[in-house]
C-alpha cells in the first residue's frame, strides 16, 4: 500500500493527537489503535518535573520509517504512523504516538506493540529527566560517564 509523504515524524511542538488519529482514517479498516506515551511524574522512585528529548534526526527519521515498513510487512494492517517529540516536555504531554489501522483488531494490537517496542530500542533518541531534588540524569545511561580516575 502506498504511504503518504512520510509516516514517521519528529515534532518539536506538541503533538495534535486528534489530527494524528484523523490521518489514519481508512474505509477498509475496522480497527484503529492509537497509543500515546505520556510524560509521567516519577521514575525509579524519583519525582520527575519535566524532561527533554535529544534526537539525532537524520537517523531517527530513517530508522523510524524502517520500523513502520517492517510493521506493514509483518502484520495485516492498512496504515501505520508514528510521531516522536523532541525538545522540552511538561508532565502529561504526549512524548510519542503510534497509530495503526487494520481490517481486524488483532493485527492492529500486535503491530502497535511491535512499533512502540522497536522505537524504544532502535531510535537515536535520548531522554533527560529533571528531578524534584534538583538533579538531572540521562535515562538508561548510568554507565556512560564516570568521575575521572585519580592518577
Amino acid at each position, binding site marked *: 500500500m502506498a504511504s503518504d509523504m512520510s509516516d514517521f515524524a519528529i515534532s518539536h511542538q506538541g503533538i495534535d493527537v486528534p489530527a494524528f488519529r484523523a490521518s489514519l482514517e481508512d474505509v477498509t479498516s475496522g480497527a484503529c489503535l492509537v497509543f500515546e506515551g505520556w510524560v509521567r511524574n516519577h521514575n525509579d522512585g524519583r519525582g520527575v518535573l519535566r524532561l527533554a528529548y535529544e534526537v539525532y534526526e537524520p537517523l531517527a527519521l530513517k530508522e523510524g520509517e524502517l520500523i513502520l515498513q517492517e510493521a506493514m510487512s509483518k502484520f495485516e494492517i492498512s496504515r501505520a504512523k508514528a510521531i*516522536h517529540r523532541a525538545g522540552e516536555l511538561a508532565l502529561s504531554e504526549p512524548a510519542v504516538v503510534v497509530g495503526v489501522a487494520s481490517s481486524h483488531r488483532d493485527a492492529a494490537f500486535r503491530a502497535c506493540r511491535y512499533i512502540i517496542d522497536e522505537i524504544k530500542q*532502535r531510535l537515536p533518541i*535520548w531522554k*533527560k529527566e529533571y528531578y524534584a531534588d534538583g538533579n538531572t540524569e*540521562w535515562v*538508561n*545511561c548510568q554507565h*556512560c560517564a564516570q568521575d575521572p580516575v585519580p592518577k
Partner: protein
Amino acid sequence: MKSVFVKWFAAYREATGIEAEPVSTSASTPAELFLELKGRHPRLASSRGALVAINQEMADWETPIEAGDEVLFFPPVAGG
C-alpha cells in the same frame, strides 16, 4: 594510522565535553576506537548498551572502519 571523524551524543557529549572531533587512529572497528578514545576522555565510561553508526547507517561494533569514515557513538537510547 587513518583519519576518521567521531561524533558524540547526549551523555557521551557531556562526558567528553565535545560534539565532534577528528581522530587519527589505528583502530579497525568501532569497539576498538571507543576503547582507544576512553584514554583521551577520562570521564567516558562504558559502551554497554550503546549503539554505533558509520556514515549515517546503523552499524555493528565489529564493522571495519576505513579512512574518512564518520563514526557516531550513541549512548543507550531511551525514546518513547
